[in-house]
């Protein structure tokens, strides 16, 4: 049969199913755990740990299919190394928080976080092709598959991307992978925020192969990726039209990795310097002019993702983001809030509750991790 990478008699899987069934019978809370590298993110952790570490391994990888399938507890590093050997990668550049090799594939999908290439390449859910998930009734369900085009039934596997584990356990996932670009070059230039946003827009309009961008403290950096000739001519154009200077490869790689894994001094220094402040992620249409918010700021995704270290009240950030057509969420905070996300509308909240009920009727998985009422 298709996709049988785990026979139902697999003891690791059976044990997980037993744990879920037992929790359901007692309506006892479970916290789904991969590498624990994103414990800081989202609502507080509650319940007995459901460890996924033993559910690991790449189930199949066929480079010519551009698809990799791995069990939920597989270290992200292991997947990335397997892909790199064949000149492929996860184009959405998921962050690798914490010590090297801890983050897991399941956690990556459940958190739904993407890195610098997000605006150009797409987000986590755009690359999910299928998943085996364990629902709150202890049923192992497979949705989607290992092929790019698939419209059989509802696309339930993609719903799990960014679900923060509230719907079930991601036991196995198939992801679309892409070849690493033939050529990547980065540039930098000094400018203020408004100028940076305008420049990013003009580059987008000119259809330059911008794959990533970052503006912080008066410096704008951009990465161009694609065919060698295309990158070369775009680079020439940028040099001619602006004061952009080429960024040396090592420095560039360090910079983009720093944004991706949040080891950049913006993320680290903000953490140490102002203990009162929280790190906010403000997601708005890229074309928004500078927002009326103060604090340390870093802009990514061509303007669509704006990070703020600020102690401004949540209502203020949410209000500004909403007026710009976006939303604001607490990413890192000393004091854990129960409402890290912007609330959804009443009809959407009803759908959220009903979806949770349909997948996890006893409400055992990751209580309060996404919204306090879920």
């Amino acid at each position, binding site marked *: 049969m298709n*996709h049988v990478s785990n026979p139902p008699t697999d003891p690791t899987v059976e044990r997980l199913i037993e744990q879920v069934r037992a929790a359901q019978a007692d309506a006892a809370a479970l916290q789904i755990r991969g590498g624990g590298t994103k414990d800081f993110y989202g609502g507080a952790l509650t319940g007995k740990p459901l460890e996924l570490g033993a559910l690991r391994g790449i189930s199949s990888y066929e480079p010519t299919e551009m698809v990799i399938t791995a069990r939920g507890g597989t270290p992200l590093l292991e997947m990335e190394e397997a892909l790199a050997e064949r000149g492929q990668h996860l184009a959405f550049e998921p962050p690798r928080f914490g010590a090297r090799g801890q983050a897991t594939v399941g956690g990556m999908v459940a958190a739904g976080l993407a890195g610098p290439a997000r605006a150009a390449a797409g987000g986590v859910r755009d690359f999910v092709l299928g998943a085996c998930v364990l629902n709150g009734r202890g049923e192992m369900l*497979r949705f989607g598959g290992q092929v*790019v085009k698939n419209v059989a039934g509802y696309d339930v596997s*993609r719903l799990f991307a960014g679900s923060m584990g509230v719907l079930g356990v991601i036991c196995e996932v198939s992801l679309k992978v892409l070849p690493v670009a033939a050529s990547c070059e980065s540039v930098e230039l000094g400018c203020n925020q408004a100028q940076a946003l305008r420049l990013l827009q003009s580059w987008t309009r000119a259809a330059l192969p911008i794959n990533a961008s970052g503006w912080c403290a008066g410096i704008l950096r951009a990465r161009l990726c694609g065919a060698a000739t295309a990158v070369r001519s775009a680079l020439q154009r940028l040099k001619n039209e602006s004061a952009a200077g080429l960024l040396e490869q090592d420095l560039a790689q360090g910079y983009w990795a720093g944004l991706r894994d949040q080891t950049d001094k913006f993320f680290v220094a903000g953490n140490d310097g102002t203990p009162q402040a929280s790190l906010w992620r403000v997601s708005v*249409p890229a074309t928004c002019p500078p927002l009326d918010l103060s604090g340390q700021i870093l802009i990514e995704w061509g303007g669509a993702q704006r990070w703020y270290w600020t102690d401004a009240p949540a209502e203020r950030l949410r209000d500004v983001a909403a007026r710009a057509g976006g939303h604001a969420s607490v990413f890192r905070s000393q004091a854990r809030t129960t409402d890290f996300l*912007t609330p959804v509308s009443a009809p959407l909240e009803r*759908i959220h509750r009903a979806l949770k009920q349909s997948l996890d009727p006893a409400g055992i998985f990751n209580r309060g991790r996404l919204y306090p009422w879920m």
Partner: protein
Amino acid sequence: MDTPAQDDPHAVAALVARQAEVLAALAHVLPRGALLHRREDTVAYECDGLTAYRQAPLVVALPETEAQVAEVLATCNDLGVPVVARGAGTGLSGGALPHRSGVTLSLARLNRILQIDPVARTATVQCGVRNLAISEAAAPYGLYYAPDPSSQIACTIGGNVAENSGGVHCLKYGLTLHNVLRIKAYTIAGEAVEFGSEALDAPGLDLLPLVVGSEGMLAVVTEVTVRLTPSPQLARCIMASFDSIETAGAAVAHIIAAGIIPAGLELMDRPMVAAVEDFVHAGYDLRAAAILLCESDGTIEEVGEEIERMRNVLERAGATKLEVSADEAQRLRFWSGRKNAFPASGRISPDYMCMDSTIPRRHLAHMLRAIELMEKKYGLRCANVFHAGDGNLHPLILFDANDADQLHRCELFGADILETSVRIGGTVTGEHGVGVEKLNSMCVQFSSSEREQMLAIKRAFDPAELLNPGKTIPTLHRCAEYGKMHVHRGLLPFADLARF
């Protein structure tokens, strides 16, 4: 098909009374002329692109505004009347087939382009806007809407969202899902909801991928914000001949292995090439066992570089003949046969049934050999076109619908293809949707708990199951009947195999 109740006067009377009740209620919320119920007026709505299935709707509602859509839905919800949303009716799986006692909600009049934003590279349009009309409106800004289903001249963006439509360019540019940022929709209760946003994400669960491709069963889409793509400066196409389907299939794998993502990568087998050549006279190589079309688009430099790399790979992969389009006219000629594969098949056979399964590319040759054997087994011919880059097959089974036995054999042939696709790790539908056509095949692809979970997800959006009921997700009962039939024929030895 809508008349079985005619034998039963009570059922007919009940239906007539129900129709009067629904009409009276909807007359409060819609203007005159926006409601159809006479058979001669509703006949155009009896089927979609899958014309073998027909059903007269109780009533057709043609709202012109979102507010009217909301009121029609709320009214139907109060009365417990099923609602089938409909765009242009070009769907190929019967997704817009009317419900016998339901309202067909035609959204064709919501056809305004609300905004083209060349800076954000987005278009916000009402659901009834045609796919191609978006690209036409964006063209002055050097932009276009990338997903290009072959019905793009007629099909609407609302229908594209319902089906998660693809097209020949989706290997490089993605499906509808990847090109939609935001959807405004109404629940069956008539409440407005938004999925996604004009930013790159929205708070909470990501419901957008659930709604895209849900075949009108979760909510009624009224407005869509799509991402626009810069029109490439140049596109060139390679037409390569192969002396066996295996080498052509292997060439596809070599292209991908070389790290190339072509703008289009399409394959036609010999019977299909013969049919289209006779139709379009494009100069296809009639001696080839298979023809591969491989396209590159982008800047002049990019295309030059990529075409050379593609040419090298294809030559090494054993292409027996290779031509690169020298100009736009020649490129369009290369494509003319592929784009006309369906009408060309219509010329060589009274009827054809188009399948739509997707398989992992590496099984392409295996699948084609299996189809060859099926041609003998069922005594019917089959021509093949497919989106080789993403493994999406469109075998066209040729038959004569006037011959009941041929129709029957054709259905068995189709089911066999779908089940073989599932067995080798594929899916029963890549882009046409399940609708009513592939309900039985869903029993093969999904376990009962998977199907029950999907039905439970439907109820999370639509508790009374009024939106397009009976489509896409088969009930346990239906699958049990289908399973019995199959076990009886001995075709489904793996029906009860547990799967992880």
